């Protein structure tokens, strides 16, 4: 059991981060806190991807001294995927924050329930 946890420590921490972010989305009413929760979920995905690409005892895939052997470097593909994820998450966060600013300007509150209630009342 303990061995299993140690082998998959990164994965389990990623799962915990994902769940913490998801719980943030479910429990918080403040829109800013919800967006923070979404960003925590994003970091969980980065951790999972980056740790899948890691290989014990190898270095980052930057060719040093012309060594082109596979056994010298880690897997470069997950690194590229994490990069894509970060860019998309930045864009989504900016969009969500600007929507939140618009919502605050209209309803003068960040409380999602209150804003939805007011929106429903307005028809």
């Amino acid at each position, binding site marked *: 059991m303990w061995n*299993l946890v140690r*082998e*998959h*420590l990164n*994965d*389990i921490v*990623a*799962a*915990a981060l*994902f*769940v913490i972010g*998801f*719980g943030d989305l*479910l*429990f918080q*009413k403040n829109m800013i806190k919800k967006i923070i929760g979404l960003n925590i979920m994003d970091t969980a995905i980065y951790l999972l991807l980056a*740790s899948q690409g*890691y290989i*014990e005892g*190898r270095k980052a*895939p*930057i*060719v040093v001294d*012309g060594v*082109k*052997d*596979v*056994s010298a*470097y880690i897997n*470069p*593909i*997950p*690194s*590229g995927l994490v*990069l*894509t994820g*970060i*860019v*998309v998450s*930045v*864009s*989504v966060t*900016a*969009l969500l*924050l*600007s*929507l939140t*600013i*618009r919502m605050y*300007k209209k*309803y*003068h*509150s960040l*409380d999602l329930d*209150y804003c939805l*209630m*007011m929106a*429903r*009342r*307005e028809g």
Partner: protein
Amino acid sequence: MKSGNTKTQNKTELIPGKTAKRLQSVYRIAAAVMIVLLFVLLVTAMVGLPEIGDKNNPDNNEVARRYIENGLEETGAVNIVSGMILDYRAFDTFGESCVLFVATICVTIMLRIDGRGGDEDDEEHETGKKAFGIRESAFAKFDSRNYEPQNDTILKKSAMLVIPLILVFGIYVVLNGHLSPGGGFSGGAILGTGFILYLSAFGFEKTERFMNAKTVKIVTLVALLVYCLSKCYSFFTGANHLESGIPLGTPGAILSSGLILVLNICVGAVVACTMYSFYALVRRGRI
């Protein structure tokens, strides 16, 4: 989070207090059960994955092998990740730059303040405000321009020291994207923070001398067009062929690896402009 919600929910007019409270607690318990179940599910799935750091894992397959063994010869980039994302998968990165550009456009649409003003505040909100126990101070006029630092000496002096270093470091990271860790995205983000710090320290008037809506527009569009033209011709030459014709040079030199350097500069320009315009838009409603 518990105390605040029960207090406000009691006073809602739409749903009677007790029902609202009951619904609230049902929702909370259901949510808690759900996230615990999700955690258990995820952990059981994770434990089934192959061990981290094992070289025989299925994701270390022939694709990664090929990138590492042939990457340096085919792309000329010492940094294999850079060679991968800007040569083999250049379309993917072009899509990412376009995502950033579209995000800038969307934020501009959302936050742009035109001269007409027009506050959407009205009396209908008064009852709701009281029901939810929202303090009046939260209704101060939304205008962060009132909070701009005015002639803050400490900020100005330290910005004078730090900003050149930040900008030079950002340019270094962009230009060395094919040689060392970094590249267009990280270097562009560093450059963007430099501009943002300049804006916070010296205000909009001075920043607009070199960074205004026109500059942002021109730089972003030129960068995206250069990227697009340098990679999209392969659609007409029968795809699957991204030769640039530029000599790859000696690996490790700064002028090497063909188009990767150019594309890194394009991506860096787009990212720096995007970061700056996000901040400027949130701050005052236009770039």
